[in-house]
């Protein structure tokens, strides 16, 4: 058994050595840190006229939501499908009971976690709203909202979120994303095209549909991950 592990380690290190040698002897692979972005597609993303056209100060958000908006729709779908898979495997109905915690949460913990819940929710919403200006956006903000729900689940052994509301929110946010894409098709020329004015670079109300889509993504991701948390922390009543 031990010999097998040593052999596996040897093969793994050999594999890493071969990958490293293949990359370091490749003239097409640029050396670390010495990249000219004008040779790449990214030169276009960092072009001033394109930046003004999209209107998002955060270029990563511009790529994720504007240039590759369709890709992000697929990404949200993958997350939805995995949440669906978790719900199918673990079972999700309002009748399920909470898993019992190993300890009894006291009064201070329950009240304190409720006070923290609002603060975490507010930070999450702030990050979602400023996704096109600062680092962050719908995905981290949505996860933060879900972490607030997780806090309530861990600090209170009787807490149970209204899981039906999450499902409705998730469905509405996902549908609105597609509807906004179709509006781009109707009012402009292609799917998910920006049909609102871009505004001034750096303003909260700028970048057209990017903040709207990121709010929808944030709500969808937040409710989906909260649903996953609920599925993991509940179980069917043993008859």
């Amino acid at each position: 058994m031990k010999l097998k592990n040593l052999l596996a380690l040897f093969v793994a290190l050999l594999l890493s050595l071969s990958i490293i040698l293949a990359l370091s002897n490749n003239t097409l692979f640029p050396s670390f840190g010495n990249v000219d972005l004008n040779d790449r597609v990214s030169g276009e993303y960092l072009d001033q006229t394109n930046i003004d056209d999209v209107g998002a100060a955060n270029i990563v958000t511009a790529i994720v939501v504007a240039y590759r908006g369709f890709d992000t729709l697929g990404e949200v779908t993958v997350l939805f499908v995995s949440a669906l898979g978790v719900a199918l495997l673990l079972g999700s109905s309002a009748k399920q009971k909470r898993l019992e915690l190993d300890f009894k949460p006291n009064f201070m913990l329950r009240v304190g976690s409720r006070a923290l819940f609002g603060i975490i929710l507010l930070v999450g919403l702030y990050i979602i709203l400023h996704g096109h200006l600062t680092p962050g956006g719908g995905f981290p903000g949505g996860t933060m909202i879900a972490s607030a729900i997780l806090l309530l689940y861990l600090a209170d052994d009787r807490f149970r979120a209204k899981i039906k509301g999450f499902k409705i929110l998730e469905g509405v946010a996902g549908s609105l994303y597609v509807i906004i894409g179709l509006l781009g098709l109707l009012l402009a020329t292609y799917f998910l095209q920006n049909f609102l004015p871009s505004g001034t670079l750096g303003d909260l109300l700028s970048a057209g549909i990017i903040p709207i889509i990121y709010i929808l993504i944030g709500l969808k991701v937040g409710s989906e991950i909260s649903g996953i948390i609920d599925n993991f922390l509940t179980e069917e009543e043993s008859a």
Partner: protein
Amino acid sequence: MIQYAAIVLFVLGLYGLVINRNLIKMIVSLNVMEIGLNLFIISIGFVYDGVAPIITSTNTVGAVLFVDPLPQALVLTAIVIGVGTTALALAIAKGFYTRYNTYDLSKAEEDL
């Protein structure tokens, strides 16, 4: 040169995936592999003296060098997909535990 550390991390995750027979440890190894790959993709876009690709009043195009935003956007996608796969894998592991009362694949094999 430092980006090859990410490759080593990826390969160590692969090693963990091969030698472990415990489902939870296998999922953790899968995540280590994923982090190694993400770090490598991020490192491709690094530029010396580059700043984060966010336009501010002082960081404008032409005034400063920006790092490549495209790998960062792709890794953002990869992280979200990773969360989905990890959640699904953990759900399968939980189902496995309720059925066999162990997370260990070898022990479950003996019970069969």
